């Protein structure tokens, strides 16, 4: 009994320590965001000596933070939605249509995911230059789609593989075409997985820095991630406004996740087949 209690206590201690390790940087971001400009190095405790909202107001008055956020929202929404659309179509086809070379296609898709983005950003830059897509929102969006689609195809294929084919066969006998069976049966059942793919695409695009920084040079077309980098100068970094910008930049992702997580219901397939 004593061993059990000790084991539980150690278990909890490890959990608490891990949670603190994860949450402390976020807490520290908040502390610095509410600290007066230039005072971050003089913070002595675990909380600011005096609170200020100036860092936040300056973001919107002295820098185009709202524009950056809107750019990020536009790029992340469109790229994640298109990645989901293309990934779902490809994943469903690879799951349901058995054709020669399907396995090879899956491996090739995976290989593209193994390439580090730094290795492909230069050819993409050159390609987009020739296509006249540098310094455009479309260019960044397309770049982000290329990052998200490979995993989206793999993930959606996995979700569709887990849905028994007989459910769609039953729908086809009940009066559906193949497309209608996909729409009425496969898609609703895969929706928790597809939401995960959307969140993954949104978060990847929202946080992405390399492509957004390389493919766009005009400040009004920057995304939030590039905007955050602009607080770091050659000789000094404006930590406090940067942390305030980080807080503002984090909020939409958290809101998207909170909104969608209610739809991440597990066990949706239960009872359909034995």
């Amino acid at each position, binding site marked *: 009994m004593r061993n059990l209690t000790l084991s539980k206590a150690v278990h909890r201690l490890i959990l608490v320590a891990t949670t603190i390790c994860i949450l402390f940087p976020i807490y520290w971001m908040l502390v610095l965001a509410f600290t007066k400009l230039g005072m971050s190095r003089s913070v002595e405790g675990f909380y600011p000596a005096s609170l200020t909202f100036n860092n936040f107001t300056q973001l919107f008055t002295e820098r185009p933070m709202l524009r950056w956020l809107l750019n990020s929202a536009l790029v992340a929404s469109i790229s994640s939605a298109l990645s989901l659309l293309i990934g779902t179509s490809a994943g469903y086809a690879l799951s349901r249509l058995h054709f020669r070379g399907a396995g090879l296609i899956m491996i090739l898709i995976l290989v593209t995911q193994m390439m580090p983005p730094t290795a492909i950003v230069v050819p993409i830059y050159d390609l987009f230059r020739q296509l006249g897509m540098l310094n455009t929102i479309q260019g960044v969006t397309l770049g982000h789609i290329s990052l998200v689609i490979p995993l989206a195809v793999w993930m959606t294929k996995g979700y569709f593989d887990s849905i*028994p084919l*007989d*459910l769609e*066969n*039953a*729908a*086809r*006998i*009940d*009066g*559906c*075409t193949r497309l*209608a069976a996909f729409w*009425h*049966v496969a898609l*609703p*059942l895969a929706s928790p997985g597809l939401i995960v793919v959307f969140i993954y695409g949104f978060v990847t695009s929202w946080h992405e820095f390399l492509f957004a920084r390389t493919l766009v040079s005009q400040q009004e077309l920057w995304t939030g991630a590039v905007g955050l980098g602009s607080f770091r100068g050659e000789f000094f970094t404006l930590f406090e406004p940067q942390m305030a910008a980080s807080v503002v930049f984090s909020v939409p992702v958290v809101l998207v996740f909170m909104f969608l997580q209610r739809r991440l219901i597990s*066990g*949706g*397939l*239960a*009872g*359909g*087949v*034995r």
Partner: protein
Amino acid sequence: MAEVNISNVRKAYGSLEIMHGIDIDVAAGEFVVLVGPSGCGKSTLLRMIAGLEDISSGTISIAGRVVNDLQPRDRDIAMVFQNYALYPHMTVAENMSFSLRLQRLGQEQIRERVARAADILDLSQLLERYPRQLSGGQRQRVAMGRAIVRNPQVFLFDEPLSNLDAELRVSMRAQIKELHQRLGTTMIYVTHDQIEAMTMADKIVVMRGGRIEQMGCPLDLYDNPANRFVAGFLGSPAMNFLAGSVDGDGFTSKSGVKVALPANYGAMQGRQVLLGVRPEHIEIVSKDRPDAIVANVALIEPTGLDTLVVARAGQEEVTVSYRGRMDVRVGETVGLLRDPGHLHLFDQSTLARIQPADQQKSMA
């Protein structure tokens, strides 16, 4: 209800042919059971009738219309799947009304048809539940309900009872048979369970390796199996087989067990044969009877209704089934007496049944 005609249907994957020219005629309103061991092609054939599998050659007709190139939804069929295949995100009512909603029937008509099917299958109290909230038997009834609301020309059942426990299987078996009697719709039913086949079918089609071994009324197949496979597949416990040859006026097994043959087996002197006797056609008698085969009791399995006795005569093992009670013990020496009217002989090389001379004459 409609007739289904399957004519010279073949199925091949590349150069590998798995269905070798199937011909079956199902009369309108008939209950046909496709039965056979795993991998014999019975489910594939059913899915070909449903349109879920392409056929390589031949024709399938439903109500006189060739349906080879028709989509499943255009064949006017309904199918009950082995794994139920209920839509997990829909309630029982939504599952049952799905096809009717696709047909864009009026709300009132849909409600009425679902209510009628639910009433037949005793599902009225479960209409608002989801499949995950139902037991196995209830799910199976919903799957049947989903099929009957459509009022199709043909019902297809793909091993619908194989996931149920023994007791439920028996009651569902009776329910399906009753449903057939009530609706009178043509039904094609796939199972690997020969008891299900025997009890439910108007006509049984025994399949093996993508071929039809025999087709006919259940009792006709049981009493007159066309070959050793059918003889061994139908019946539980299975038919006893002894390998040997026709010798004088009887049969002598390889280990020397002699069995007298009726005269109507004609002149088959020296022919290598398999002797088949069903367990219920062997009687346990005193070992002292001159016409009895002497055997040792190796195993006794009382089931309540029947008692199965496994006895060894030389190297041959024979299963005997009898009703009632008998004081027989393991290790005891008994006499076995076969019923001469129920002997089957099969050719050892072709495994086809050898017809007694009088039957050959009557067939000729």
